[in-house]
């Protein structure tokens, strides 16, 4: 293989998989109680496209600082005739949920890829350093004990902060003399996860009327997603995935072992800190908006690695985009039936057999 072509290969795969993702999104937006043809969905999406054509300065206000307000003039290049009800369903109900699923899938798959490489362990997933458990504890606390949280912070912020605090605590406990051995990190992560699941169980026991809401959240769901969630995810997820990609080469070398990586010029502890911090924020953000959705961060990186190989410069972007498509598809199945399922059940039910199939057919039992 042409080693310098890794980024080029990554680019080709990324373009192809972005196309797949766009297709999955379009098809998914047509699925639901009201079935809408994919072509019509495409027209709705294109109708929403606005191109900036100019900038207009309007007068400026009164007062000491006369700040002129700037208005960007836009032009809608497409004007397909589409049913208004269909437009409303696609734009306000389905698309936010679908796009959020895509971003959550991208975040979880990217974080899972990094954790599997980081721990040199194919069974690692984004929750391994306790971020998901911390986020779950934060979210459940905000449902069960809202009065106990300071400043009346909402569920999503409570979940995100819980995840970050748990991940940071695991890192601090596992670090001694500026070194963080991955084996220690793994064990501390397991211990903290166990502790936090005890906390969550205790809170569920005393949750009373809100138990149903807690259990539903813990299973992972994308219901009630709004454009605000999508905007937040769009700001957080893509830049962090690109930041992870900046460490893809370091991650490759780290697979050879830390002493080797250090001798090859990688600043091992610094790279580990960065990889851990970025993937923890990605995981915490994903869990905060969508609950604990298992298996995406475990199966997608593993499956993609069997197809494209272990080079993280290729593996990370492909795995992230495949994760986006996978979660959109899984969530479509989750909401397509008469009774809506938590998407976590679908990812586990669909992912596990696929994973076993890959393991048996490829006969690859290691990373």
């Amino acid at each position: 293989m042409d080693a310098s072509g890794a980024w080029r290969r990554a680019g080709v795969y990324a373009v192809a998989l972005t196309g797949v993702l766009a297709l999955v999104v379009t098809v998914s937006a047509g699925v639901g109680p009201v079935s809408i043809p994919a072509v019509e969905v495409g027209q709705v999406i294109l109708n929403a496209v606005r191109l900036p054509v100019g900038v207009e300065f309007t007068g400026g206000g009164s007062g000491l600082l006369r700040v002129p307000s700037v208005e960007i003039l836009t032009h809608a290049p497409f004007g397909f005739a589409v049913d208004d009800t269909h437009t409303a369903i696609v734009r306000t109900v389905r698309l936010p949920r679908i796009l959020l699923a895509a971003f959550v899938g991208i975040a979880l798959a990217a974080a899972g890829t990094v954790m599997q490489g980081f721990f040199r362990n194919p069974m690692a997933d984004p929750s391994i350093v306790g971020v998901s458990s911390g986020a779950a504890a934060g979210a459940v606390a905000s449902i069960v004990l809202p009065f106990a949280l300071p400043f009346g912070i909402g569920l999503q912020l409570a979940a995100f902060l819980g995840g970050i605090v748990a991940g940071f605590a695991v890192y601090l406990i596992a670090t001694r003399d500026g070194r963080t051995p991955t084996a220690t990190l793994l064990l501390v992560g397991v211990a903290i996860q166990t502790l936090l699941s005890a906390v969550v169980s205790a809170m569920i026991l005393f949750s009373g009327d809100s138990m149903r809401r807690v259990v539903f959240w813990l299973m992972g769901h994308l219901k009630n997603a709004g454009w605000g969630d999508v905007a937040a995810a769009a700001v957080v997820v893509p830049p962090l995935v690109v930041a992870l990609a900046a460490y893809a080469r370091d991650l490759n070398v780290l697979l050879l072992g830390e002493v080797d990586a250090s001798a090859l010029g990688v600043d091992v502890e610094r790279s580990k800190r960065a990889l851990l911090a970025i993937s923890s924020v990605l995981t915490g953000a994903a869990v905060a908006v969508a609950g604990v959705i298992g298996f995406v961060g475990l199966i997608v990186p593993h499956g993609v690695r069997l197809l494209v190989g272990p080079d993280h410069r290729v593996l990370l972007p492909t795995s992230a985009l495949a994760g986006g498509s996978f979660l959109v598809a899984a969530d479509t199945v989750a909401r397509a039936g008469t009774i809506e399922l938590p998407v976590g059940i679908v990812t586990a039910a669909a992912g596990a057999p696929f994973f076993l199939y890959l393991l048996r057919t490829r006969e690859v039992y290691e990373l």
Partner: protein
Amino acid sequence: MTNVLDATDLRVQLGGESVLGGVSLSVERGEFVGLVGPNGAGKTTLLHTLNGTRLPDAGAVRVDGEPVGAQSSREVARQVATVPQETTLSFSFSVADVVEMGRTPYVSRFGTTTPADHEAVERAMAAAEVAEFADRSVQSLSGGERQRVLLARALAQETETLLLDEPTASLDINHQVRTLELVADAVADGRAVVAAIHDLDLAARYCDRLLLLADGGIRAAGEPASVLASDALQTAFGVSTELSEDPTTGTPRVTAVTDRGSTPSEDGPVPDAE
């Protein structure tokens, strides 16, 4: 002075035990220095200290006059390359991929490898005789082939100093000699080489100079024949030895002698420190 590598009074403690108790050495360009000594003498620790992956508790390592401790691992990796004793190669990276990792200290984060990197990788693969299986997975290789891949990776770093930790430890005699011939080629190219070598006869055959490391200190140093003939060698290994000349190569040959007249293995009772 043309010393590339200079270490003065290195002291290292591991878990409260002194592993290196004041080791000094210097290596010139084009010199092949062999590090011999019993298991647990601190050879691996010394090599890790020389390449900057372990900082000494006292003393300093200088490469080209610059202290290693004051430089980033990236800067050090452009001056010192290491062939590890064992490495995790349980991934399906191709041989070319692994050798290309030797260019890590030269490539920026998102940077692609340049033609210069390509040439370095090609040269290294040719020199280490692994070019013919460049596209194969490292997992499919034999122990001797893997060792040469790691040598190629180190050569691709294009450093003046090359450190090797037991490059021949698990190889059959054919691959032992073949690997050391390749290292000798690197020395002939002007590199400074320090290699921990288990096999005293092989060390004597290929090295310009031997350092006998035992109990965290250098007990003898100099021409192979003089080091192997020294009483320090017998003390270090705790066994009586006879020195003879190998009739084929004309280089010194060490035979361990015991009361029962048998020749025990060179393995001492102490396990090798990390």
